[in-house]
């Protein structure tokens, strides 16, 4: 049948077409799959590169951080190494100036002092700069009394100004508030820098400082400071990079004008830190005007000042109250241990540098502290402390073998082990970076004086800690005796029974108190502290009670966070009290 044949032919053709399509789509599929795999391979290869690059970048970053840290450590060491000999120079010069000298000798001493101070300033600049670079410099907000700042600067720089036969003119806009809020020290620093700069480049002329009110706001004033000189001026080209670190103009670099080239860069960073602006207007040969503008807070005299006074008053009351609370105990103790007590005990000085030891020895002698023992390492300091009681320890923080920080740690451990009262330890160091201070405090030091220090600083610090460390009376023996007399007939004394009960509950309560204080739960902290205070007082435990009493006071004023430093003293004081009671019970 022809039609059947045709039909078969047609179907065969259809099948062929379908097959062809199938082959084509299969081929297409394989091509797609293979392209997909290629793409995937490339993707994974890229991902690998990315991870490898990331790892490389991360390690580069870490290296950079480490090198930054080592730079800051380097600065610290440099600062220490420079300050230590400077300390010797300045201190000796100060002592020398106090001795009978001829006029000529006096002049020589002044030159030594000035040169050393300039060197000190250069080191300070380097330190400031490295701190600013590391973002470690913090502002200290407080009162800014511009008139006082100006007067101070005038006094301070007068010799320099006179030397160049210049006149200094100060002009302060009366609209600028007498008391503002800001960082007084840093504003002074900037002004001194700019004025010194102006003075440096002017001779037989004038340096004029103007303070103007730019804008008055409800709570702030925008104040503009201008320092004009009639000096050599600065070309427009140089003005652009003037505030860059280590930048000095061609003339500025000449020998006649000394400096690190960091002054203006520090000024700029400080002004920026205070959210202000700094700039210059100058023409070559016609002098320059350096200016900066700062937004300073208006000091709301009435309310704030009185508030501060109240707080201050209350804190001083508080210590008195605390003492009163303990009854006669402390009063007795202060009678028993008069203030000379501190002076009868020697001061321990630990410093590896022979110049420093000699200097401090002379300074202390001048201040009337004659009992002094010197050691030259941390290890010797610890050994000396083990055998003897000192009224105070002056400790160099950097010493070979065992440094002052480790020595302090060991001394604090001995005190705890042997239940000895805490001896004030004051760090003396050439490294005045915050991180170094933190390390000293962390180790258990009480105070910090940066080298070089003046007689006055040394005197104030020693007196502060001598008066603070009146020997504490752990127990009020009158109360203890009374309890001991109320003895029961049983085998156990009343005192030992009470002590046992006290021991059972106090550590838990101290822990509760710690929690309340840390979480600033004023009410709970006040209640727990009160409870602990009463319990301790009834057993004649005096020193620990004063601690509880202080915490209670803070908590009642809702200033619980201020009690945090006291927390660490509780457990040692508790242990000391228990030990002393045990001893009393035996005898």
């Amino acid at each position, binding site marked *: 049948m022809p039609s059947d044949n045709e039909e078969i032919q047609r179907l065969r053709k259809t099948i062929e077409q379908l097959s062809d399509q199938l*082959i084509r789509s299969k081929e297409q599929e394989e091509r797609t799959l293979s392209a997909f*795999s*290629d793409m995937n391979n490339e993707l*994974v290869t890229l991902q690998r590169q990315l991870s490898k690059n990331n*790892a490389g970048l991360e*390690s580069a970053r870490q290296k950079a951080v480490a090198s930054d840290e080592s730079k800051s450590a380097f600065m610290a060491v440099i600062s220490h190494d420079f300050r230590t000999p400077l300390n010797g120079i300045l201190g000796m010069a100060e002592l020398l100036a106090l001795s009978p000298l001829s006029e000529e000798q006096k002049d020589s001493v002044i030159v030594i002092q000035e040169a050393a101070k300039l060197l000190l300033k250069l080191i300070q600049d380097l330190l400031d700069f490295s701190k600013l670079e590391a973002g470690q410099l913090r502002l200290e907000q407080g009162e800014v009394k511009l008139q006082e700042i100006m007067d101070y600067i005038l006094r301070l720089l007068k010799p320099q100004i006179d030397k160049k036969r210049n006149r200094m003119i100060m002009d302060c806009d009366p609209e600028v508030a007498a008391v503002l809020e800001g960082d007084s020290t840093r504003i002074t620093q900037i002004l001194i820098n700019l004025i010194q700069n102006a003075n440096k480049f002017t001779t037989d002329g004038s340096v004029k400082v103007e303070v103007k009110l730019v804008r008055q706001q409800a709570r702030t004033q925008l104040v503009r400071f201008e320092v004009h000189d009639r000096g050599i001026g600065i070309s427009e080209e140089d003005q652009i990079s003037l505030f860059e670190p280590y930048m000095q103009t061609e003339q500025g670099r000449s020998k006649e004008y000394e400096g690190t080239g960091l002054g203006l860069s520090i000024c700029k960073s400080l002004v920026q830190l205070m959210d202000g602006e700094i700039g210059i207007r100058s023409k070559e040969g016609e002098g320059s005007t350096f200016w900066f503008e700062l937004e300073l807070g208006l000091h709301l005299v009435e309310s704030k000042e009185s508030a501060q006074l109240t707080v201050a008053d209350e804190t001083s009351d508080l210590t008195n109250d605390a003492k009163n609370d303990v009854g006669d105990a402390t009063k007795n103790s202060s009678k028993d241990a008069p203030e000379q007590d501190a002076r009868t005990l020697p001061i321990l000085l630990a410093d590896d540098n022979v110049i420093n030891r000699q200097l401090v020895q002379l300074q202390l002698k001048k201040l009337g502290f004659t009992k002094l023992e010197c050691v030259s390492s941390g290890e010797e300091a610890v050994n000396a402390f083990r055998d003897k009681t000192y009224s105070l320890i002056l400790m160099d923080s950097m010493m070979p073998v065992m440094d002052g920080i480790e020595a302090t740690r060991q001394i604090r451990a001995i005190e705890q082990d042997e239940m000895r009262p805490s001896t004030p330890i004051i760090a003396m160091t050439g490294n005045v970076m915050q991180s170094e201070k933190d390390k000293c405090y962390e180790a258990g030091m009480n105070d910090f004086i940066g080298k070089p220090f003046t007689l006055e600083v040394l005197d104030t610090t020693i007196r502060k800690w001598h008066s603070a460390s009146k020997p504490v009376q752990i127990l009020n023996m009158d109360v203890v005796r009374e309890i001991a007399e109320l003895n029961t007939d049983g085998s156990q004394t009343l005192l030992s029974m009470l002590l046992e009960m006290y021991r059972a509950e106090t550590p838990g309560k101290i822990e509760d108190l710690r929690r309340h204080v840390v979480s600033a739960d004023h009410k709970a902290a006040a209640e727990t502290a009160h409870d602990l205070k009463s319990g301790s007082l009834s057993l004649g435990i005096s020193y620990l009670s004063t601690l509880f009493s202080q915490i209670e006071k803070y908590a009642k004023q809702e200033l619980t966070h201020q009690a945090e430093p006291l927390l660490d003293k509780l457990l040692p004081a508790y242990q000391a009290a228990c030990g002393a009671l045990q001893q009393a019970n035996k005898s």
Partner: protein
Amino acid sequence: MSHREAGERLLQDAEILAEKITEMQYRLQPDLMERFGPIGKIRTKQDSQYSLSYLAESVLVKSPGLFTHYISWLKVLLAGYQVSTEDLEMNLQLIKEALNEEIEQPHREFLLEYLEMGIDVMKHMDTQASFIHASMPYGLEAKTYLQHLLDNKRKEAFEIVESELNDGATIRDMYRYIFQPVQYEIGRLWQRGQISVGQEHFCTAATQSFISRLYSRWLIGPNKGKKLVAACVGSEQHEIGLRMLTDVFEMEGWDTYYLGANFPNGSIVEAIKRHESDVIAISVTMTYHLHLAKELIERIRNHAETAHVKVMVGGYPFNIDKELWRTVGADGYAPGAEEAVAIAERLLNHPVSLDNVSTASE
């Protein structure tokens, strides 16, 4: 170099011969058209061309094992497509005829000798066992991992690896006991026709993506050790093995650069120079790409700035013929990633004693 010339001669005409052989086979076996249709015919031509290429390459490097191995592999593969041993035998006989007709002496003799060996091998059944056993370390995990991949459960598969890593397994063990055997097993399943090409691609891509997700976990710092550049020759898609090898080098403290496939020879030489590489690892999977590896090695040797670089080769053909690495001009060969690191280090430490190196690899 008659073997070489014979191989090269055959490579030239492989495509024309394949066409001719296919036509002859379909004329002699008309049922083939009914059984496989036009697709089948195209496939036959492709397969014939592959067989000729393998034969040529194998003669070229004087390595009969390459061809015989290929034939036994092909037999299993074709069985999956319902192509019988008889069909394959017919195809090989036709290749023999075509060689007799088209290739002049003395080349013909070399080619026929190898072909006969292939025909002989075809008659012995040879089945490859599974690459995954429960008794191996992480054997059960590898098995579950593969099953998840075959079920398109990518997430679940990765979770196995993640949980093992969290339990303390090393990335290197994951490479060695999960990724690598699973990859071999996928190849075996495809050869036996148990999974499709698509599935094979998917599983490989999934494992690759896991490998790339793991990079951030362990590529954590620049290595300061010796440097390795790794590349596949030709347009090889079977690059995952080399990738894993490169990673193992990296884990061993080498600084590695994985170039992958599709990298022109010139660029590979360029990369060796740029990265100041100590060793170049070249991977070959397809035997018919062997001559490309040889060309690349020659190029590296002839370049003043890369002549000193140690050349290592690896991949399927080198595993079949353990002496083949010498023929392509390499300095050494390793059957797997773990051995490769040791051999590369020996190559750098004892540059002259190539024979010792080869012993170490065996």
